[in-house]
């Protein structure tokens, strides 16, 4: 399989504090990669490096490279606006815009200059179907997205990302604010998407990582400890720390 995204010696400092310590990690094209580790291990920080969301935080220094399609996304010529269209992101808290469901989904397309009603309608239907929420909202596409439940809002957020057809989708603990049934639905959504997208998800929930991911990377104290096929990580980890974490001895 080809790699779509690689990080080389990626380090991140909050002021003087080193939050990521020289992470080298390759992501394969298509499939789901889970990033696991205890709180504060740097997995979310790492995820946010991949579409430069950390740029928004003052006092952050990043060294090393993140190569996406053979281009370093931290190169000065990189257009972060374009980058984020190719690498979409879903957050921990569902954050639909306070507009209608329809408007939420077409937002990225409209900004990209698509105004053809038929194309927008088609994109809305396709994205909402991919996000497995079409049947629940098809009769009220023009209702406020904030009137939906948390789980539904999160799936609308996923549809919003899918509508602009990114290559990679980053999920930052996208199910941790949801109830188990909604989480389950999001998981199924992700499983349906794994053939067409490269999905990188940060999760605290190890059962979830083992259920849905193809590969798993374990982080501890800002370092990448181990990365392998999910089955290998959970059944037969190489490093002692990984074993301790997945067997619930800490974290």
């Amino acid at each position, binding site marked *: 399989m080809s790699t779509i995204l690689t990080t080389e010696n990626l380090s991140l400092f909050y002021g003087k504090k080193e939050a990521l310590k020289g992470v080298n990690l390759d992501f394969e094209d298509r499939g789901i990669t889970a990033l696991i580790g205890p709180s504060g291990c740097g997995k979310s920080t790492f995820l946010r490096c991949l579409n430069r*969301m950390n740029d*928004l935080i003052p006092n952050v220094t990043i060294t090393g490279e993140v190569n996406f399609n053979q281009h370093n996304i931290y190169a000065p010529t990189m257009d972060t606006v374009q980058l*984020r269209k190719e690498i979409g992101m879903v957050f921990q808290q569902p*954050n639909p*815009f306070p507009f209608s469901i329809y408007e939420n989904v077409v937002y990225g397309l409209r900004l990209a200059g698509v105004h053809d009603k038929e194309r927008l309608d088609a994109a809305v239907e396709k994205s909402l179907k991919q996000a497995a929420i079409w049947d629940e909202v098809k009769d009220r596409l*023009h209702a406020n997205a904030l009137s939906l439940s948390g789980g539904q809002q999160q799936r609308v957020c996923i549809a919003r990302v899918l509508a602009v057809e990114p290559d990679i989708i980053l999920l930052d603990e996208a199910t941790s604010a949801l109830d188990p049934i909604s989480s389950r639905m999001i998981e199924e959504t992700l499983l349906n998407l794994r053939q067409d997208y490269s999905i990188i998800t940060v999760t605290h929930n190890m059962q979830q990582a083992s259920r849905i991911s193809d590969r798993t990377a374990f982080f501890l104290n800002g370092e990448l400890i181990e990365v392998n096929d999910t089955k290998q990580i959970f059944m037969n980890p190489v490093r002692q720390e990984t074993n301790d974490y997945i067997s619930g001895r800490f974290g």
Partner: protein
Amino acid sequence: MNAKRTDKMATGILYGVAAFVVIILVALLGYILIQGVPKISWHFLTSPALAFEAGGGIGIQLFNSFYLLFLALLISLPISLGAGIYLNEYAPQNTVTGLIRTTIEILSSLPSVVVGLFGYLFFVVQFKLGFSILSGAFALTVFNLPILTRSIEEALANISDNQREAGYALGLSRWETVTKIVVPAALPSIITGVVLSAGRIFGEAAALIYTAGQSAPALDFTNWNPFDISSPLSPLRPAETLAVHIWKINSEGIMPDAKAVSAGASAVLIIAVLLFNFLARWLGKRLYKHLTAE
């Protein structure tokens, strides 16, 4: 004394204080309306004031008040919006922006008579604008800017950072995130802030006495050429507003029905400000509904 009794007493005192405030407000409003409303008629609202005889109206003053309000908002809204966006979305947290915020706070508590005298020296004398609508509108801008800027900044600050992150993550630039997500989401509370500040401007007298002047020359309502001095739209004519008119007839009015005119004008003023307040709420709700769903 045990906790239960103390609690009962505290509750009683709080109810008493609240009732006291409500009674004062209701009494004040009621007095003005009862004294004034019977004096209001179509003739009163449309005819010009008379200096020496009874039966004068407030038509020109009423028009002046609205025209000044419109101009003041036209000038102050874009500036406040820009300043509010800068302070909340762009400004780094450092001593300079801290200083700006403190300055805005101090300016917003500036007595309006000071604003009026400043406007007199600066716009009327220095810039030779004379007692005019323009001088008045600038003075009202000085008076309104700090408050409007703060209310817009607060409206923007109430929009959760989640929304901004969602915008950035969709590939919006910072400017697009501000104009297409944050401002629309904050628009209902921005509008509410604008309309409420409109109420304050409408009732303002002290800032206008020395800037827009205390005389209301006759206007020719068939002449809409803004460069003609007798045109209602002329920005260089002196323009006594409703609030200034009330102040004037109470301090030096010599018309025989000064009391009645004053009472009627006060009632009109209060009713207008009340309408602004209701309009603010209604518009805010309507707009929110309209923006968030069809």
